[in-house]
């Protein structure tokens, strides 16, 4: 055993190569190559008459993304992802800040479990549970009736772009459930970033004359930003790709995820499905590039 250890100690490159061989093979074989295949597919197109994929380079599939119906899908998904991300950020930051600076070790443990607990149960079950909560005969509507705010709910549901026939089939419902399912992914990275800020930095800012709000914007926020960006990457990209929540709580207006599902399934239009998949990837790359340019990752350097 010792001889083997010595053998690798003297040949460190070989040791490293062996260590990485399996994960690298997996990454290349099951991750990178399918991704390239996907990219390749998006440059083919479906022959509308035969229903067969024409394996010839073309921009035609990407041009199809720009027809109004498809632009609607892209715009709808992007706006929803953006709003969900903002709402998650606004909700997660105070929770993460409390966990870091005010919670006793015991309370911190309890809060961790509360944040993580929903992730341990099945995602579909949780979404369907929300459908029941939001249903016309569900507990939420009942509660609203009990406090006599039914009129307000009806007014809200009649607003275009927000409402729908009931909370269970409305944009508002999709929004609420998206926040619920992705919130932990925002809390945890922000909390980790806040935890890394030494308390002495906050004390030093106060010592140098900054009141709490200035300490927040000049010291805490810039140092927490990598965590906020990491969290927003999760919530934004998860919302962009999800099809379960809009399928369960939405009407017939598609989100990107649903479009991909239906194009590659029912209509067999793999190239268009691939093109739809490339869109969120491009958006995330642009997003990370912009965040990097704006210095969001500087504190980690």
């Amino acid at each position: 055993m010792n001889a083997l250890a010595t053998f690798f100690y003297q040949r460190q490159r070989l040791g490293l190569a062996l260590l990485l061989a399996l994960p690298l093979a997996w990454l290349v074989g099951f991750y990178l190559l399918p991704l390239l295949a996907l990219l390749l597919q998006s440059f083919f197109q479906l022959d509308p008459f035969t229903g067969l994929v024409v394996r010839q380079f073309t921009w035609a599939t990407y041009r199809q993304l720009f027809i109004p119906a498809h632009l609607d899908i892209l715009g709808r998904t992007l706006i929803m992802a953006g709003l969900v991300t903002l709402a998650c950020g606004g909700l997660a930051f105070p929770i993460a800040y409390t966990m870091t600076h005010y919670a006793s070790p015991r309370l911190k443990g309890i809060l961790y479990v509360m944040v993580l607990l929903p992730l341990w149960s099945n995602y579909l079950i949780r979404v369907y549970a929300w459908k029941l909560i939001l249903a016309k005969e569900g507990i939420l509507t009942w509660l609203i009736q009990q406090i006599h705010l039914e009129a307000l709910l009806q007014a809200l549901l009649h607003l275009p772009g927000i409402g729908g026939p009931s909370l269970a089939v409305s944009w508002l419902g999709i929004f609420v459930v998206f926040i619920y399912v992705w919130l932990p992914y925002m809390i945890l990275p922000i909390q980790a970033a806040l935890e890394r800020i030494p308390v002495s930095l906050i004390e030093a800012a106060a010592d140098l004359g900054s009141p709490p709000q200035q300490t927040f914007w000049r010291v805490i926020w810039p140092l927490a930003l990598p965590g906020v960006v990491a969290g927003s990457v999760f919530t934004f990209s998860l919302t962009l790709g999800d099809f379960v929540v809009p399928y369960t709580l939405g009407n017939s207006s598609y989100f990107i995820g649903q479009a991909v599902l239906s194009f590659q399934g029912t209509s067999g239009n793999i190239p268009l499905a691939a093109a739809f998949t490339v869109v969120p990837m491009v958006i995330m790359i642009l997003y990370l590039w912009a965040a990097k340019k704006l210095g969001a990752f500087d504190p980690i350097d």
Partner: protein
Amino acid sequence: MSDRDNGIPAIELHTVSHYFGSVKALDQVSLRVEGGEFFTLLGPSGSGKTTCLRLIAGFERLTTGSIKLYGQEVSALPPYARDVNTVFQDYALFPHMTVAENVGYGLMIKGIPQVERRARVQLMLELIQLPDLGERRPAQLSGGQRQRVALARALINQPRVLLLDEPLAALDLKLRQQMQSELKSLQQKLGITFIFVTHDQEEALTMSDRIAVFEGGKIAQVGSPSQIYDHPATLFVANFIGVTNHIAGSLAQQLTGSPQPFCLRPEKIRLAIEEPSIPDGWCHRCGILVDIVYLGVYTRYQVLVDEQTAWQVVQQNSEGIPHPPLQRGQTVHLLWSSQHHHYLPDVGDPWIEPPIKDPESIP
């Protein structure tokens, strides 16, 4: 300097107590620091010295008592409303800002225009002898450089009192000694009151005008370095500042004719191989040499003077090591002037010398 003339103390603590939960960190501490003083809070860890500094800075809200800064009650003020600045033990430099932005932070918060700010930051960087490092990030500096930047960031605000929380603890010995003398001369040049926290008694003696020795949340003694060293008020102070031989019981009776315990510093004792002639007012004792530690400038000996008492004796190596060299187990003669006997005010301290069991077992 005018503050000193007015006679208003820079810092005045009056019966300050502080609890962390049910743990008492400070117990009825009262303290007066004059303007322009280099005042050191010295004590082992957990003695309350850092808590005391953090209360003055405002990072902790005191439980009871009052803190005055130049006559103004500040104990209810938040840190950003107090005219003091702090140099932190870990420096607490903002990692996302350049050195210049760090140093200029206090001025920026005060709303000083950028042109003036830049000029004053540059002046400060020159004062700390890092004029060209303004554009670096703290992570690109050495420990000593970060220390200076932390100092500059605090001093640029021209605080009335500068608080220093073990600022040299993370530096290596040579750099620490250099920074000690730099800090001291900077303090004299600027005339700002420094309150300096350390657990290093040598550092305290080197730098301070006055020292407060903390023990278990209370102040054991306040005085100048020589007062504290030569006239320690308690056995704890005598042992914490340097080393002392505490002589009590029958041994004290034999030596002085009275059982009253006293302290004797190791360097006041002369060590001889031959029995010396004993001048008037001097004391003499034979002992067995049990340990010899050569330390360059001096040699430290441990001498067993009766079955259970070992004394520390320190001899300068000014004439080289004695010839022939001393051996363990050898009988030596100890000689000292009785004027170096220091009688502690609190004779009731039930402190007992740890017994030495067997001279051979001492490594």
